[in-house]
């Protein structure tokens, strides 16, 4: 079997080498576009945006107790509270997409039930820190905010709908609540942790401050943004020295590295594919711009519906939705359809649908998928109409 497998690989390499249309100008152009796009990411987004964002994600995974959030999603938790916590807690709980499904299953079977569980399932992937930061940076501030707010609001609506439709079906195994293991004693008071996160977010915000001459204060901040960033970095380093133990710092670095190791290769692969297919904004690559304009241009219901259905079926590795959308928007996709894809895409994919089905059964899964697609379409249209 192994030998046949090797032969197969060798044969595919041979066929690719034999038929690769290297001389074809469209192919060459697409190849160059993918390289340009990769360089653009490497030069513009890695140092100032992605690396600080990864450190923040690593800090969230390490220094914020996830159990302190999860206790609001238990079976006895206040209903209003559990919906609100479920809709925003993705920021803290879902730094990596692989953590979303177990938490969802836990809330559904042992905790607050189907409503908050589906609310979390919908908003989780869309509002994780890395995704919001990169969306705002690459696709524009409005789209980043719209993505976060849209995900939060619509997740509550979807959760409530699921609760209204299926809430009466009690789950027998609901009797025993999930266990929350004892957390180790916090070594810092809350305000220190809060300040530490504020300073890190501050570094990210000021280092990426862009030129805006509409207000004098923005201009003023822009002129001295490097001083502000520098001061904040000094503050951060002194905090690390005074407030943190050495083992905590190594843990922080190691979880940051774990994220980086896992997400960077996928992201750059995504950038290369996006560049190859769609090119940078203003440039055409393999897929003609007219096709994209025809399918998802403008703000018609069909463009939005198509974007949300395509997004729901497709699998996006963490963050890869951003370069793909950048390519699509550059080739003429409407902003509304882009939001529709952002809202339906990371929340659903064919593989995740299958897992969700094993957890809550076919009927509920189909209703959930329909709700997601409809909600994403509506929010896309609204956003396209407003901006």
């Amino acid at each position, binding site marked *: 079997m192994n030998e046949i497998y090797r032969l197969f690989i060798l044969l595919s390499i041979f066929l690719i080498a034999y038929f690769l249309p290297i001389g074809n100008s469209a192919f060459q152009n697409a190849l160059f576009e993918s390289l340009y796009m990769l360089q653009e990411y490497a030069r513009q987004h890695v140092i100032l945006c992605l690396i600080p964002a990864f450190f923040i994600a690593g800090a969230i*995974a*390490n220094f914020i*107790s*996830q*159990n302190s959030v*999860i206790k609001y999603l238990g079976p006895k938790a206040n209903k209003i509270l559990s919906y609100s916590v479920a809709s925003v807690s993705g920021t803290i*709980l879902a730094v*990596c997409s*692989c*953590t979303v*499904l*177990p*938490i969802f*299953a*836990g*809330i559904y*079977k*042992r*905790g607050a039930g189907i409503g908050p569980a589906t609310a979390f399932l919908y908003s989780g992937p869309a509002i994780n820190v890395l995704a919001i930061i990169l969306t705002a940076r690459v696709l524009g501030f409005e789209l980043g905010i719209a993505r976060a707010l849209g995900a939060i609001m619509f997740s509550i609506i979807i959760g409530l709908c699921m609760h209204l439709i299926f809430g009466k079906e009690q789950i027998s195994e609901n009797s*025993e*609540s*999930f*266990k929350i*293991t004892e957390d*180790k004693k916090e070594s810092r008071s809350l305000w220190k942790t809060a300040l530490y996160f504020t300073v890190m977010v501050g570094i990210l915000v000021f280092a990426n401050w862009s030129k805006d001459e509409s207000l004098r204060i923005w201009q003023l901040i822009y002129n001295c943004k490097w001083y502000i960033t520098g001061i904040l970095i000094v503050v951060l380093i002194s905090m690390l020295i005074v407030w943190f133990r050495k*083992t905590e710092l190594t*843990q922080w670095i190691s*979880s940051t590295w*774990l994220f980086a*190791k*896992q997400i960077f290769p996928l992201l750059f692969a995504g950038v290369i594919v996006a560049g190859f297919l769609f090119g940078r904004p203003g440039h055409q690559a393999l897929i003609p711009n007219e096709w994209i304009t025809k399918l998802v241009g403008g703000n018609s219901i069909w463009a939005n519906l198509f974007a949300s259905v395509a997004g729901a079926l497709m699998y996006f590795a963490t963050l890869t939705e951003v370069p793909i959308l950048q390519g699509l928007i550059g080739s003429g996709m409407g902003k509304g359809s882009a939001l529709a894809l952002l809202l339906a895409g990371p929340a659903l994919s064919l593989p995740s649908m299958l*897992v969700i089905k*094993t*957890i809550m059964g076919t009927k509920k899964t189909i209703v959930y998928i329909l709700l997601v697609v409809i909600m994403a379409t509506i929010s896309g249209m609204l956003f396209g109409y407003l901006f």
Partner: protein
Amino acid sequence: MKIEILGPGCPKCNKLMELTEKVVKEMGISAEISKVDEINDIINYGVMVTPALVIDGEVKVSGRIPPEDELKNWIKK
């Protein structure tokens, strides 16, 4: 002693698995280490945030990778 690592195959879960194997080997204890990656089974332990470590049916930690000395303490008992 029966040690179970719960996790659907995320990198953190694999790291916890490696760490546990290493610690058990270092301490020279005979323990049966197994991995639980089916989500429905994980939920039956009452665990939501993975990775989680279960020793003889008792959930010791969930949601983070414990430092080595903490891990050694649990295994010693």
